[in-house]
């Protein structure tokens, strides 16, 4: 080892001089990662915006066919998980070892509930032949607009699917954190992993806050099929 390097510990990697510098770097890194995520989801939001603008009536009919209750309930569940995530971060700041574990587990459970409800919703779509493909059919629309309705559901599955994938990754991160927290790895001086995982979890939550109104709510009053 070179003379100037300090011994690498779990809490301070050798490339950093101080713990504050390390925490700053990790947090900035996560924020930049979240910016890349915005651009990543952005491509799909762009496609959604264009096709919603091109086929507004069909999209209104298609989005009205989705059950609003499950989506709304899931929104509450996900917001609840963000609350428990914040509480886990707070517990880490205060050094409350048991509370970190409990709140992380609660967050994981709520995330699991969200994915479960999502699976139920997808199953319903499958049973109703609302999955894009040769058997696709949306009631109440003429044949020449079935393709446009299919576009809506393609976007629905692509966007909620990508969101669910991020939830699954988040669940993996939470499980890792739970094991580490049980070993007492996080202290008020070193809780950066909990902090940046929290940032990620809230971001995934915020994506849903945009997806829910776009896919479920807009133009629900327009029930009349277009001429």
């Amino acid at each position, binding site marked *: *080892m*070179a*003379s*100037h*390097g300090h011994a690498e510990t779990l809490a301070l*990697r*050798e*490339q*950093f001089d101080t713990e504050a*510098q390390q925490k*700053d*770097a990790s947090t*900035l*890194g996560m924020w*930049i*990662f979240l*910016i*890349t*995520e915005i*651009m*990543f*989801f*952005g*491509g*799909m939001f*762009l*496609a959604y915006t*264009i*096709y919603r603008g*091109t*086929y507004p009536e069909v999209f209104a009919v298609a989005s009205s066919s989705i059950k609003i209750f499950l989506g709304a309930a899931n929104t509450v569940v996900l917001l609840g998980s963000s609350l428990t995530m914040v509480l886990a971060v707070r517990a880490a700041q205060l050094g409350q070892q048991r509370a970190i574990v409990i709140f992380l587990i609660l967050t994981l459970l709520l995330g699991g509930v969200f994915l479960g409800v999502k699976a139920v919703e997808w199953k319903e779509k499958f049973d109703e032949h609302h999955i*894009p*493909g040769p058997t696709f059919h949306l009631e109440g629309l003429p044949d020449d607009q079935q*393709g*446009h309705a*299919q*576009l809506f559901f*393609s*976007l629905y*599955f*692509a966007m909620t699917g*990508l969101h669910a994938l991020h939830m699954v990754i988040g669940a993996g991160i939470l499980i890792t954190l739970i094991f580490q927290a049980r070993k007492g790895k996080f202290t008020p001086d070193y809780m950066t992993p909990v902090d940046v995982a929290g940032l990620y979890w809230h971001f995934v939550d915020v994506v849903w806050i945009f997806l829910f109104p776009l896919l479920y709510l807009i133009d629900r009053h327009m029930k009349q099929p277009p001429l």
Partner: protein
Amino acid sequence: MATAAVQEREHYLNASYGIKSWLLTKDHKRIGLLYLFTVTLFFFLGGAFATLIRIELISPQGGMVSSETYNKLFTMHGVAMVFFFLIPSIPATLGNFFLPMAIGARDLAFPKINLLSWYLLVVGGLLALFAMLAGGVDTGWTFYTPYSTTYSNSWVIATALGIFIAGFSSILTGLNFIVTVHRMRAPGMTWFRLPLFVWANYATSLIQVLGTPVIAVTIILLFCERVFHIGIFDPALGGDPVLFQHLFWFYSHPAVYIMVLPAMGVISELISTFSRKPVYGYSFVAASSLAIAVLGFLVWGHHLFVSTQSVYAGLVFSFLSYFVAIPSAIKVFNWTATLYKGSISYATPMLYAFGFIGLFTIGGLTGLFVASLGMDVHVTDTYFVIAHFHYIMVGGTIMAYLGGLHYYWPKMTGRMYPEGWAKLSALIIFLGFNLTFFPQFILGYLGMPRRYHVYPAEFQVLHVLSSAGASVLAVGYMMPMIYFIWSLKYGEVASSNPWGATGLEWQTPSPPPVHNFVEMPVVNHEAYDYSTVVEETHVG
């Protein structure tokens, strides 16, 4: 590595041995060398495809390969060169190695993520390589729909997934650089004391983190369209194939600046070092990198002038495209002004820098031709466009990459390359390059379309000239390959600052110790302050 034998001093190359010490390294310098090895392989792979293309084009009948094979050749040439050589080339090799050293850091902010980036490039590259060996892909490197989603019977998915995975390598490298520049600078290294190479890589990183995710999601949509026929790009269901072109170029135009901005950073270092003057208008050159990064995101529509894009959008995109010329010209003028009354020496890196300025200027000025709506309609999809972007990519980026490699080689390996051979190869590359690509401007202007291997007989003379130039170019590219390897064992031992350059990377031994510096540096002067350089120069 051969250098270990002659020096007892511990440095990053002899600190540990064995394949594991390389494949599991977290040292940015070793990862830089891993990248160098990887992108060199892809450079010669892409070069092999180019060789076959140029041999085929010697005769107008198109007799050597079938049309299908020709489609695959130019596609795989583009894929290998763009995604697996040009985009990672300078940032991932020279940037990885020298960005932390130039700001006085022990490493990048996230060394493990840095290693992960390399593995992602390797995995993506292997997937693309598998697709090439399994039968190839024939869509063109642009993957335009609906051909890529509906009609092509080649390995579209495997290639696109390879690019998708390699994209995350690019994103993570950019993220790592941004955090490193923000948080890891040595005491006294303020933003406006940063070497321009760092500024250029910083601007590049911004494009990497903002643009690459868009191509990632575009590839996901392409995948869904090809496999599940979801309709996003399919007119039969009300989708729009041109949406793909918009999404593709939203990344791939800025990607041009991912390729050329770091090259400009290298040139700033070379021009200053070999004229022993601070770069003229330092802050303008630094800001012009950021301006190019920002403007690069506003001009993608100039690739769609002949698509269904509205003519009014075309007008706006054309207008905005001209703006890119302003920061580009600022750089060229400031480099030229730096030379004025400088103490110029003609070492090999400087020859490459001169080559870059001339060729980049031609590439940039012809860029104005294709940015204008009327002219572009005439030359769209002709060899004029091919020549234009090869002047930027090959004449610009590869010239700067080679210049940078020669410049930094003593620091990376502790050995000097053979100056005479290097100068000769720089000359051969310059001549070969112009002979290859200048005739293509004329070909394109006369109407020779790109991506065809059967052409009217009157174009043969120009095609033969171009192919002849390509063989000269190939010789030029083989030479550094050989003498760089030779120099590892037989090259003259390099001092810590053979060029008399400024910059923290030259104030540490060659090759650098594991943690880059014997004593962590403190900066108390501006960039390119030659009064601080201790004389022990080796400039030839």
